[in-house]
């Protein structure tokens, strides 16, 4: 079952594992995407379980008027697909009538909608024509196809075919991957200082989606965007291999990849990044004291695990026990894998009970894991960091390097504080 995979692994100890997984499905991404794209609405076509998942993962806290909902399939919908289509159209029309602010509607596929083969692509096409100017797109967030962050990947990939064509001679860079607005603004300023015109995917509004053209270089801001990258490649863009902008070193490597592609002079690069690197270095110092030599175990979750392990190992001096990841994109993560300490154990996939046994045996100082596992591990005396927070917090770039380290240091600091 767990065959070691040699070659192309650049000195890491890569193992593939199959078995029970403990991860969210791609629907979870809606929780941040509906805030990122301010006039988009996400309609999950699924079951009561889908609605319950989003509600539980999100808490009932964004109760204001969230721009997502679930169309819950019932028995009648299962009995006749034609009826289900009519029902869906009616549901969408009601929704759009009630929310004239919506410009972009995603029909989000789920496990049940895929299994009964409800054709959401056709529905999106049909509804797009009927509801113009509202655009209707579709992607799958189903758990049989997508794991957690892969929902964002599928969403962004669905946007790519519709992106406007940039003018001939447009010399901009595309950055793909949802970032917190504050992070995006910081990066926009850095690219301006570097003299690189830049656009971000996704845009913050349906009308503000970036224009692209063949030959345009792009950087990935997140490591889980395999499908988006394929779609961008399909429109003739080319990927700039780079580490991910987590930690000072990752941010520098990420910016440098763009700078080299755009022929930015090394002096200008140094000048533009100097202040950020200095501030990041200052911010990281106290956390290095807390994290150096600490043994860290990653359960698979967001696909951010490899860059995070690289950051913790190289900038914080932590020792990496195991890097679990739901999927290892060897191409996009090549630079990251090369930077992991030789012999780092990377486990792709999951067999939950076996992995928990390994964590129990290794007794790491910190386990990075999903919400379902955190309290059980804490109860066994293992400190944990909920990994979902890494998606919900601005952590990329120089100004957030200290915040990123703090997220890992806090559980350790907290344990030291508690006397009972």
């Amino acid at each position, binding site marked *: 079952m767990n065959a070691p995979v040699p070659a192309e692994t650049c000195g890491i100890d890569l193992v593939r594992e199959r078995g*029970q*997984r*403990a*991860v*969210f*499905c*791609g*629907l979870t991404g809606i929780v*941040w995407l509906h*805030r990122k794209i*301010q006039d988009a609405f996400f309609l999950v076509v699924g*079951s*009561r*379980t*889908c609605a*319950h998942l989003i*509600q*539980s*993962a*999100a*808490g*009932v*806290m964004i*109760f*204001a*008027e*969230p721009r997502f*909902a*679930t*169309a*819950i399939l*019932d*028995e009648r919908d*299962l009995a006749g697909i034609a009826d289900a289509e009519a029902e869906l159209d009616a*549901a969408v029309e009601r929704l759009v009538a*009630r*929310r*004239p602010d919506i410009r972009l509607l995603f029909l989000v596929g789920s*496990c*049940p909608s*895929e*299994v*009964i083969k409800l054709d959401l692509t056709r529905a999106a096409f049909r509804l797009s024509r009927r509801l113009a100017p509202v655009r209707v797109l579709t992607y799958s967030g*189903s*758990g*049989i196809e997508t*794991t957690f962050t892969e929902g964002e990947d599928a969403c962004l990939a669905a946007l790519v075919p519709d992106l406007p064509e940039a003018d001939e001679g447009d010399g901009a860079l595309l950055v793909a991957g949802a970032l*917190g607005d504050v992070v995006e603004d910081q990066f926009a300023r850095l690219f301006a200082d570097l003299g690189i015109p830049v656009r971000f995917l996704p845009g913050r509004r349906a009308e503000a989606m970036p224009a692209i053209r063949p030959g345009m270089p792009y950087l990935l801001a997140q490591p889980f965007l395999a499908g988006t990258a394929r779609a961008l490649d399909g429109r003739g863009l080319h990927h700039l291999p780079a580490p991910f902008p987590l930690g000072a070193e990752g941010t520098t490597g990420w910016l440098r990849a763009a700078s080299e592609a755009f022929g930015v002079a090394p002096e200008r690069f140094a000048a533009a990044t100097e202040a950020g690197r200095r501030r990041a270095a200052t911010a990281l110092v106290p956390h290095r004291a807390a994290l150096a030599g600490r043994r860290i175990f990653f359960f698979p979750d967001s696909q951010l695990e490899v860059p995070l392990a690289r950051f913790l190992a190289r900038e914080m001096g932590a020792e990496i026990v195991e890097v679990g990841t739901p999927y290892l994109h060897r191409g996009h993560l090549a630079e990251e894998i090369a930077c992991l300490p030789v012999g780092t154990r990377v486990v792709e996939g999951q067999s939950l009970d076996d992995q928990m046994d390994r964590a129990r045996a290794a007794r790491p100082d910190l386990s990075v894991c*999903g*919400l*379902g*596992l*955190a*309290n*059980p591990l804490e*109860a066994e005396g293992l400190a944990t960091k909920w990994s979902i*927070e890494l998606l*919900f*917090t*601005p952590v990329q770039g120089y100004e957030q390097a200290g915040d990123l380290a703090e997220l890992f240091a806090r559980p350790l600091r907290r344990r030291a504080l508690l006397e009972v």
Partner: protein
Amino acid sequence: MQLTLWTYEGPPHIGAMRVATAMRGLHYVLHAPQGDTYADLLFTMIERRDARPPVTYTTFRAEDLGRDTAELFKQACAEAYARFRPQAMIVGASCTAELIQDDPGGLARALGLPVPVIPLELPAYQKKENWGASETFYRLVRALAPAPVAPAPGTSQGARDPRLCNILGPTALGFRHRDDLVEVRRLLARLGVGVNVVAPLGASPADLARLPEAAFNLVLYPETGRAAAQYLETAHGQPFVEIPPIGVGATRRFVEAVAERAGVAAGPVLDDPGSRLPWYARSVDSTYLTGKRVFVFGDATHAVALARLAAREIGFRVVGLGTYERGFAREVRAEAALHGIEALVADDYLEVEAAIQAASPDLVLGTQMERHVAKRLGLPCAVISAPAHVQDYPARHAPLMGFEGANVLFDTLVHPLMMGLEEHLLGLFREDREFHAEAAPSHLGASTVPPSMQDEARAPSPDRERVGVRVENAQDEAATDPLHRRDLSVEFSSLTPALSRTGEGAGRGPGDRPAATTAIWAPDAERELKKIPFFVRSRARTNTETFARERSIPLITLETLYDAKAHFGR
């Protein structure tokens, strides 16, 4: 196809998990895709359980669909047995696996495991969580305590100690089940009635097999325990008592019924030196509670019990009563009729919100959904039923049942309200800086609704909602709610459309704006209206406008305002 944002109940397999997680020595193998594993966090985060639920998910993927998901199920089942060595297993499918029709029960039987394997049929596209819990518990009891082959009622009945009972219904993730159980055990101990088995909470499959040894059953939560109790009555001749002892009156009725069943004296247990609700309610400072309008919504057990307690033990007036459980609508309708109102049976929270708005209560008792609705409307609220959030699983002992439960409920219902003298002062001195028009109860710290927001009355953005959160809740909710802490959610949210779901545009404001304003207010009348405390202002406005409309008064003047006040009284 139902369009929804939030649901009161999860799918039925979540109910099965609540039973499995409550028990010891039982394992649940659930044929489900990986996303369904989110359910773990309901137990480990919301209820703060210290272990994963005893559930193995097959987590099949798209590529498995082309191959053999049945084989995957068998393998997961065999491995789960080998690893956990349970006394019994339950097997079933979630919504997606139900569609691929692998027959988990048949597959598990084929494995020939040396323990009872109980198949669950939980139709995910028809049924919901509480039904799933009830059905699972019933199936377990039926399988593990089968009816005797040769019924010998005389002998088996005769051997039973009449003073021995079972307690049925408490589950994992139940609303205060842990603490209720302590109080119920205390009552039974005072009566001299022994407890044979409590189930599902804390019971093992072997314990379920011992259920027939008791003389009768107590059903604490009919939603989860009634079906099993009815089976035990038929198959084992065990009668059951189904009086959830929530409130002083219900506790006394419960004690009397149990005493009669067990043949013991109820008298000394009908009161308790620690029972404070009756005196607190009679204490003169409680006079201001008289006739406060309360809206109650929740599961049927808690909604009915709270309506009774609010009306008969605290002296509130129940202006709304409802449940999200259609299966228990009858009980709720009957109770509503006693209060002279019609019950609301709905699982669409928007409908509930509209009903609350229409009733303009002084206090909302509900689930976490109603807590949010109340927050939006600027109304005081207490959570009295599942679904609930992490702060509704308190560290302290906080039962709802028994005499102590009634004490807890007195505090729960009274605390969110403005205190009597404060309310008077607010009415007297409208222009005092502290007692301004938007003042909230002073003992609750931060204002429910900061004055600056009062007249904006637009659809709230999350940021606004954060500001409006009662301080006591904000901390706790943030603790398990990753999104609440998520800086992104703030930064991303600059624009939430100013449209209400009901299409009325405004009406989201904290208790000030009517749904549709047609009447014109003279400036002095409008100013006078602002002098009315905010928690009754919306009702005053609506009443006055209704009054004006009915009499075709084109302009609402000071006179109209006071004419309407006299007409409607309070």
